[in-house]
């Protein structure tokens, strides 16, 4: 077995037994990046020297008997998170020369655990997109089928894990940006509960929705990486003081006593046949494992795309006001006045989709339109949350598809933003409700593209997600499969 295709659990076992070293494991990932990333474009920055240095340190720690979980495990980091001394472009020209002056909270935790940071991976500009095609520094390609999107916005994260360049990755999820690329690339991704993981050092898109989370090769690895990044942080005022359970302990066999809900709105017209079939096989698998299957309705689901795009763009218009040509590296040439600095730097630095969302959000918040758009959307958000609260009185977790179709060819959504926005319909309500949600590999399309299954649970109930995902893996016999790249 090549070292770079190992799961975290396998690699830790092999390192603990002295069969492999962190340096060998890291070198194997770097070699794979060298071999395939020219075509796949998952990475924006590769820190070969830094990674090997961290791997040597990890080996030394292990020798001293001080290895903690993740010690020596090579990971990639979405370019929306700050890693001190490295670029953090957010996929945008406006941050091309920005060097992060500090570590994000989750990076502090990974470094403390001894994880090896291979580099920073591609994403849609400011995490605004569903295909990673708006990335200003190379567009990641789906490693399962050439010419197809990796999904987004954490497309580089999903590709780096699927294509055996990194054992795991950290991404961010505002409306599905971890779960959707995980589904399209055949890896496991989790958006934890809002408030579970600190966003300190995460470049903000929509602050009432953003959450950092893991993309991994299977459920056991997801439990380990989640364990490492959770916990209260006073530097993020939305971080919640909640006990962090032992997530690996949740991975028990059998679903007896669990009630799994099937929300009918997630199986509505327009859903791809093969995607629906995979979800149905997942439902059967959980029933076979002993779960009780119950029908659920989330009646306000048809409004979630409209609510999301009004609230997310409104928050984005405010968050992205800080990119003004004064603080973060880029300033347009030939500016005569301060207004000139703002206008020229922003106009030259932001791409078309980011400008569209800033304008939409500014409009929704502007005088005369606030009640009709922002306030109305905030009220419907309450109704969507109440739907979920009612649902989780009837069941422990929900099962559904993640996306309406498998990965699609590059360029297909560019002329119709609304069609692309609507493709997010199955993932965004979890962000609106603040609940944890997960994408687990479920099967493949006839063309060989991966198809995921989505699980959602009540606030701070990541354990039932992990348990259900673990049982899906067992029953479906679909664990980690490396994408067929050289």
């Amino acid at each position, binding site marked *: 077995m090549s070292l770079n295709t190992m799961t975290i659990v396998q690699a830790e076992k092999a390192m603990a037994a002295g069969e492999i070293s962190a340096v060998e494991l890291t070198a194997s990932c770097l070699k794979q990046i060298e071999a395939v990333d020219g075509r796949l474009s998952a990475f924006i920055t590769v820190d070969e020297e830094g990674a090997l240095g961290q791997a040597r340190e990890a080996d030394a720690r292990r020798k001293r008997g001080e290895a903690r979980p993740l010690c020596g495990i090579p990971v990639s980091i979405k370019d929306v998170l700050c890693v001190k001394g490295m670029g953090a472009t957010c996929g945008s020209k406006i941050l091309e020369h920005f*060097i992060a*002056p*500090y570590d994000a909270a989750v990076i502090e935790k990974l470094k403390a655990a001894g994880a090896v940071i291979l580099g920073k991976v591609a994403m849609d500009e400011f995490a605004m997109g569903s295909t990673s095609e708006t990335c200003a520094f190379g567009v990641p390609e789906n490693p399962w089928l050439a010419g197809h999107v990796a999904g987004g916005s954490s497309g580089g994260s999903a590709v780096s894990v699927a294509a055996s360049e990194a054992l795991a990755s950290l991404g961010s999820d505002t409306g599905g940006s971890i779960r959707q690329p995980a589904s399209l690339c055949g890896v496991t991704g989790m958006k934890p509960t*809002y*408030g579970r993981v600190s966003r300190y050092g995460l470049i903000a898109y929509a602050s*009432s929705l953003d959450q950092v989370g893991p993309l991994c090769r299977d459920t056991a690895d997801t439990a380990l990486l989640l364990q490492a990044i959770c916990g209260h942080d*006073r530097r993020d*005022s*939305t971080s*919640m003081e909640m006990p962090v359970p032992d997530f690996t302990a949740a991975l028990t066999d059998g679903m007896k006593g669990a009630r799994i809900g099937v929300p009918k709105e997630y199986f509505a017209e327009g859903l791809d046949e093969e995607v629906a079939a995979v979800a149905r096989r997942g439902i059967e698998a959980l029933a076979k494992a002993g779960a009780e299957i119950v029908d659920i309705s989330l009646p306000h689901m*048809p*409004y979630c*795309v*409209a609510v999301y*795009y*009004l609230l997310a763009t409104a928050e984005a*218009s405010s968050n992205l*006001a800080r990119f*003004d*040509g*004064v*603080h*973060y*590296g*880029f300033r347009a040439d030939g*500016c005569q*006045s*301060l207004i*000139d*600095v703002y*206008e020229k730097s*922003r*106009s030259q630095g*932001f791409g078309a989709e980011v*400008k*569209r969302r*800033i*304008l*939409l959000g*500014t*409009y929704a918040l*502007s005088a005369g339109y606030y009640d*009709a758009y922002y*306030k*109305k*959307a*905030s*009220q*419907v*958000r*309450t*109704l969507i*949350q109440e739907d979920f609260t009612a649902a989780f009185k009837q069941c422990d977790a929900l099962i559904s598809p993640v996306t309406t179709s498998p990965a699609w060819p590059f360029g297909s959504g560019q002329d119709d*933003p*609304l069609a692309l*926005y609507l493709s997010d319909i199955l993932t965004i309500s979890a962000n609106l*409700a*603040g*609940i944890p949600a997960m994408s687990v590999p479920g099967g493949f399309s006839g063309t060989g593209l991966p198809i995921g299954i989505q699980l959602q649970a009540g*606030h701070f109930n990541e354990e039932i997600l992990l348990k259900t995902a673990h049982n899906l893996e067992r029953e479906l016999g679909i664990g980690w499969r490396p994408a067929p790249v050289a």
Partner: protein
Amino acid sequence: MNITRDEVLHVATLARLSMTEEELAAMTARLDALLGYFDLLQAVNTEGVAPTTHPFAKAGALRDDAPLSSLPVADALANAPAATTEFFVVPRVL
């Protein structure tokens, strides 16, 4: 029409974004289509429904008002396109 060229231009000015006439026309058409779609929310009865701004009421908690160390000035200025040893530099305002 849900939004006009002049309204987009006004909003662009508020957001400090400049556009060519061609970009403005394309942006107006796209925003018009999106706002048209958002109209479906008007069908939802939200009378008496409190708006949600955060998933939890507890989110947004304030910490104690005690001074803590922050990013050193030199580090904060390191990414500035123009700076002195203490300040960000912008074109003359007054």
